[in-house]
Each structure stands twice: as structure tokens, then as C-alpha cells.
């Protein structure tokens, strides 16, 4: 059975009809064409599919699209604002925090939400914050660096 749902994705109201079993990750990627959200395991472990649901990070591969009817979603495509990259996006590039880039959208969403909660984290807090996301390329060292750098950029811009 199909369901008509309305999502606000990256600030844009989107109406879509999906079967009840449609995963949010598939809905975003295949129904709405927002392929920046990636699927690495489809069992909620790797974190590549992380998006922000009403500002909070969730695994879109463990979420049915129909359950988020009426909610706001931010994907990696919605992180940049005003034509420029967000501080987190800039920091990942500056610090070489990505290689193949497949896990990156999940990290970017996770870190964006984390720095909103904790704008000046210490090392342990950063490692803890990203410890639900798998990366097979970078060894995480430059991702950790990028999170600190993003915090720094945000502070500079706020100051």
C-alpha cells in the first residue's frame, strides 16, 4: 500500500508517494534524487546514511520514510548555505578528512549536529562524537583534526 507523505528536505517542501516499507535513505536517494546520502551497510552500523531529522542525526537506513511525514530533514546537500561551504565542509577539505568520500556525508551531518550542541569540544569528546561512523580510508586522524578545525572556524565566524 502506498502513502502520500510530505517532507521538508533542505528547506524545500517535497511531496512523495511511497510504499510503507520504503526506507528514508531510498526515498531520499531514489524518489527525491538526493544521492548525497549514502548507504554503506543497511543495518545501522556504518553511519554513512546519517541525516538530520528535525536537527538531530538519525540513520536514514533504519527509518521508514512514512514515519517522518511532516518532519524536517537536512541532508549533505543542505549543509552549505548562501553559496559557500559550511565550516564543517570546509574543515574536512582543509584537513584532508576524506579520501573516497563515501562515508563523508554521514560524518558531515553527525559533526554538524555535534558542534551545535558542543561548539568547543576536547579531543575525547570529538572521538566519542564520531565513534558511530565507519571510515575505511582515512584512519580517522584527519577527521578528528577536521572536527577541531570546524569548531575553530565556527568560533572565528561567530566572533
Amino acid at each position, binding site marked *: 500500500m502506498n502513502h502520500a507523505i510530505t517532507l521538508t528536505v533542505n528547506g524545500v517542501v517535497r511531496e512523495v508517494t511511497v510504499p510503507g516499507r520504503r526506507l528514508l535513505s531510498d526515498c531520499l536517494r531514489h524518489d527525491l534524487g538526493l544521492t548525497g546520502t*549514502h548507504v554503506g551497510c543497511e543495518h545501522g552500523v556504518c553511519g554513512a546514511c546519517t541525516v538530520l531529522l528535525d536537527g538531530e542525526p538519525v540513520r536514514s537506513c533504519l527509518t521508514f520514510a512514512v514515519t517522518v511525514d511532516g518532519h524536517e530533514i537536512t541532508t549533505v546537500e543542505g549543509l552549505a548555505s548562501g553559496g559557500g561551504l559550511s565550516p564543517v*565542509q570546509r574543515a574536512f577539505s582543509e584537513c584532508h578528512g576524506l*579520501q573516497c*568520500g563515501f562515508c563523508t*556525508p554521514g560524518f558531515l551531518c553527525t559533526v554538524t549536529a555535534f558542534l551545535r550542541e558542543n561548539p568547543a569540544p576536547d579531543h575525547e569528546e570529538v572521538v566519542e562524537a564520531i565513534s558511530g561512523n565507519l571510515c*575505511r580510508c582515512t*584512519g580517522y*586522524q584527519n577527521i578528528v583534526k577536521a572536527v577541531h578545525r570546524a569548531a575553530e572556524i565556527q568560533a572565528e565566524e561567530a566572533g
Partner: protein
Amino acid sequence: MTTKLFGEPVRRREDARLVTGQGRYLDDHGRDALAAAFVRSPHAHARILDVDVSDAVDVDGLVAIYTWEDLPGALAEPLPLLIPHPALTHGRTAYPLAREVVRHVGEPVVMVVARDRYLAEDACALIRVDYEILKPVVGVEEAAQGVHLVHDDVPGNVGANLVQEVPSPSGLSAREAIEAAPHTLAFRLDIERSASTPLEGRGVYARWDADDESLRVYSSTQTSTSVRMAIATKLGLPLPKVEVIAPDVGGGFGVKIVHPWPEEVLVPWAARLLGREVKWTEDRREHFVSSAHERGQVQYVRVGFDDDGRLLGLDVTILHDHGAYTPYGIIVPIITSTQLLGPYKVGAYRVEFSSIYTNTVQVTPYRGAGRPQGVFCMERTIDRIAAFLGRDRTEVRALNFIQPGEFPYDQGLTFQDGRPLIYDSGDYPESLRMLKELIGWDAFPEARARAAAEGRRIGIGIGCYVEGTGVGPYEGGHVQITSDGRVHVSTGLTSQGQGHETVFAQIAATELGVPIEKVSVVTGDTRRFGYAVGTFASRAAVMSGSAIALACRKVREKALRIAADALEADPRDLEISDGLVHVVGTPSASIPLATVAVLSNPLRYAFDEETQRATQFAGSSSPDRPPVSEGDEPGLEGRDYYSPVRSTFASGMHAAVVETDPETAEIKILRYAVVHDCGRLINPMIVEGQIHGGVAQGVGGALYEKMVYDEHGQLLNASFMDFLMPYATEVPRIETAHLETPSPLNPLGIKGAGEAGVIPVSAVIAAAVEDAEGIVVDRMPISPSDLHALRQARDAGITPGAP
């Protein structure tokens, strides 16, 4: 200044699209394509009795169901054996869909095509396959006994047996040298399976153009050119009618060099047959049970040495578990058995491996490709010698090093490229000196004593490796400067996150004297470059980097010749910087490369103001010469190839300090240090990133990752819940130092860097745990449970690794 880019930590040009969700990976293509899904064998070894699809045909949205019986011509034959070898006397490969017998859990049996993946999987679930279950063969030592067979026509389950021997300088065989040695040791080592496990699995998307009778295939592959040839052959299509593109690829690490995968020929075949776009995207469980694994080996070692620890003879017998099929030949055990020697002179050497069939997923290269096992063997051997003699482990290593004055050094073996194993350059004593300083080796006893005083156990370990990189046969590069001044670079090999768009642009910008912003790079697209081998064996920078540099030099020479004509100067007096060709010392006498590009292509028809200069009445060419001189070509472009006589040998040394918990046996890496020599660095930021990622994978292999097969051949941990890849919490901060001994074999003096990080990690961690615990570590990975068991065995007086 724009031209000094080689050696600089230039930021990656790939990132802008990848951090904004604008990358295009395999599954991001073909939104309206039909979806393929597969019924895969649930049994490790079984005969297919019947396939019943009657319930599936009613599934809404079903388009087609195929079994082996449906496959025509060459598609019904076994997949190619990619790298034949005379010692691989019993090579076997799978059919694209199983024919009569399945030989591992996950082998594809039925292909379903439907409107979307959900529906295709619905249909798969309704297809009933009846099997007669056969005796599974699991575990390499059990398989080597040959009681039950994986392939009826392969006696003893032995696919290949290869012996290589190098006598001692005085002419003794390894076994004679060991017999005659003052001291000998013998032991057994056990290395578990792991796997590449890129975050993006495999995937194929095919578009058949019926009007043009041509096929375009996108594949998440490490070799698009070779996939193209395989598809053309299997489908009986003319090669020019098939194009294969590797789009953004979400990691490879070796597994995606294997080709053609069953899906890589079946999906294009179905697309052509159905006249519809078809796509298959691998899911995570499929990746675990139907792609490839690596590492699994058992090694039996005998070594002879003198009172100082000098190696006199080494005799290693390896049982290599290659799983159910051998599409990639015996490359992995060849690399183990040759790269095992590392930076050492071992006196006499004998190595024998048997490559053994089991009813498990096939084994093909994973980053390091056999080297981690070889290094584990050699380094564990040296640590045992040091322990036996009561000598410092670094002293025993230094005593056996090949010295800087001894290059080129011939190890007397045949390497994986069929060429002699001759090391081109290196400086191992300096590398060791740097590492000892970086980790604080000499001061460690005090640290250990302080920790002990606090009731803590810490230990230090070291591991050294030499890595043959940049294997042939060749790569090519094409460079074109267009009349807008842009530089278009292409090479056939593919990219999976190594930053090729950046490093190849650095090379081109440096060679041509143009701003890097003018340079764009395309890799892995057969429409742009048809001749290539692929990305593996730490070869992309060496091979394509060199080829692109050579192609740039051709273009540069032509540009100078044309500019010299236009400026009425001698080409030898010209140089290029910032995209301008100018006379040395007379900056005002200059011409932009864009204009040179215009002049390089005599035109009848102008298409803008700039190109009017090259038309026939513009007076730019002599009326006495043909517009294109004999032997010349129109256009400012060049193509060249780099084909080395043999591999170039990178090297490195790692050290780690670990702490083991006396109660829980938890192992924590406190420090990790790397000294790395890959010749001249093109981009140190990217090289460090490669090292970090490699070490992280090494940590996974040393402490966490293994493929747990039960006696029925079921893979018990085929998910990210159960196969433990390291998160940020498991990977230590990595301290790095670089040594640069240029390779004499290529124009840039570079060596490969992609795999280095992973190679010695298991050896290093094992050594550090051993040092902390005073227990011999003879296996990897070592989990807290393993360490606990070793402690119990020690307390019970059992010696680990007894042969």
C-alpha cells in the same frame, strides 16, 4: 608562482563535490533503471537439483529471471582466469551463475530483474532452489589433507604448488644451511582472513543504445579498461561499441581489481537483451559472502642463525587458503613468499607454498596483498631469534639489513610481475635510526619500569617491510591543451579516493608550467583513454604519474617548437610559466599557451576570434610547407606510456607501544610511529593520509577483524555488527616521518605509497603484546579472548606455535 607544485601539500580538487553530496558513485546513476538481485547459495557445497520459479513469476514488477541455462555462448563458460601461472596447475573459476554445483555460501544461482530492488528481492525470496548438500571443506589444514574435495577434478584440493630457492653465498641450500647453523628454531604461524571491505560495495549499471548498437557500462571497479575487454568478449560485441566508466568509487582496497565479476557481465547482458537500463548495487551481506577475502595462511618456519643473530638459512612452507576459485591466480602467495624477505639478507632461502581450495569465498588481493603475512613471518622470526639470544630486537635487524651501498640488490627470486626481485634503492639503517628516535626505543626500558611500578604492563614492538610497488606492464597518459588554455589530462587507470585528480594535476602543472586551476584530470573512463591496466599494487602514482609526466614533456616540446616559430626565437631559449611561453630573460617576448594551441591546429574554419589566427589567410604558416608537417599532428596534445623494466621498492618501519590489561586482557595501543620511504613525495598530505588509512586497516587486522567460518562453511559474522572494523575509538594517533630515497627507475623518482601503512601492523602489534606479556604471539588477530587463552596456556606450560 604556480609551477612548483610537485612535493607540495596541495588541497584536493575532488573535495568540493564530495563534501556537498555532488559525487557520483555507482548507485547514484540510473535512477530509472531496472534493478537486478540475486538468489545466492545458502550452502557451502551442494548440487543444484531444481530451480522452481513458479511462485515468483506473479510478483508485480517482475521483468525477468535467469539461471545458467539461459546464458548464451561465452557467457555460459567459466569466468576468466585473469593471471595464469605454470605452477597453477589446477586453476578454477566460477560460472557467472552456478552450473550444477555451488562451492561457497553466496555463490550466485539465479538473477532476477524487476522494476525496483524491493520487488526484485521479493521475487528472489519466492524462488525455491533444491540442493543436495555435499561435504563442505573448511580450514586450510583440513583441506590440505584432501579427504573431501572442493572440485572433483582437483586432487588433494591443491590448486598450485610453487617452490623458490636461493642458495647461500657459499652454495648451501637453505636446508643444508639450517642444518649447519649454530642455532635453529622451528615454529608455526597462523594468519586469519580479513577483507578489503570498502564502504561502497560493488555495483554495475548498463545502458544499451539499440539505435547505435552500443553499450555503456558504469562499474565500481579498479580497472575499467579490462572490464571493457571482458564484457566485449563475453557478449560478442565489437570493442569500440563498448565503453566502461569507473565513476566516483567508494573505496576499493583490492577487491574491485577482480573482474569481470559475474554481475559485471550479467547486468550488461540483461540490459542488451531487455533493451532497458539495468543496475545492480551490492548490499553489505552480499559483499561479505560473494566478493573476496584475503590474508588466511598457515606458515611453518625453520630458521638457522649464528651467535650474533645473523641469518644463515630460512625455510618457510605456506598453506595458502584461496577459497573456492582462483580468478586472480596465485599472486597473493607469490607476493607473500617473495616480499617475506623484507630489508634482510637471509643467507639461503627456500619457500614453498601450496594454494589450497576450500568451500569459502575466493581469496584475491586486499591492500598489502600477501605482504602482511610475509612480514608477520619474517618479523616474528627475527623477534624469536632476538629472544633466543637475549639481544635487542633492533640490533638483530640491523645486523641482517641490506646496506645502502648494495643497491641494486638482487634477492634471487621471481616477483609477482614475473621479473627478478631486484630492489632499486633504499636506506634501511637510516630508516631504523629515525624510527628508534621517533618512538624512543632506547629509553623504553625506563618507561616500562615506571609502568610496572604502577601495576601496568606495557610493551614495544617493531616491524620492517619492503614493498614492490609500481608493477607493470604499463600505464599511459594523454595531455591536450585546448585553444582556451585549458589542460585536459587523462589516464586509463581508475581512482578510489587516492586523490589522483589532484596529484596528476600537480605533475601536469609542474611539467607544463601552467596554473593548476587550468588542469583537469579524468581517470578510468575508456571514452578518454582505452589502454590501461588498473589501480592496484601501489602503482597509480608511479605508473600513470610517470606516463603523464612523459606525455607533458612531449606537449611541452611541441609547444616550444611552435612558440619559437611565432616568436622567432630558438626553442632552447624558451620557458613556460603561468601558462605563458616566453624568452628567458625577455619576459615581454611571450605567447600564451592558448595561442600556441590555436597555432598548432591549422584551420579552414574559425569558431571564435582567437582561432582566426590559425585560418588559411591569416599568414601564420609558410606557403612553402604543408600546413601539418610530415610526421607531425594537428593539435597541442601528446600521449605517452610508462613501462618499467621492473617494480620499484618502497620500504618502511613501524613501531608501537601497547598496554595490556592484567585483568581483562584488553589491548590498547598507546603510541604508533611510522618511518616511510616512497621515494620523492608528490603530495605529502595525501601520502600521510594513505599511511593513516593503511595503519587503521592494519590495526583492524591485528586486533579485531577475522572471517569466522563454522564447520559447515557458513560465515557467521557477515555484517558490520559482527565483523569488527575499527572506529575512531580504536585507531591510535599515528606519528610519521619520511625518508626519500628516489627510485632510479622512473622519471619522477617516485615509489608507491598506497599499501604501505597496512603491511607491518600485525607484526608490530604482535611484537608489542609479546613484549608486554612475555608470551609468544604466533597468530593474528589477537583479541582479548585470544590473549587470555595464551596466558592460560602459558600458566599450563604449553608453548604456543610449536610446529
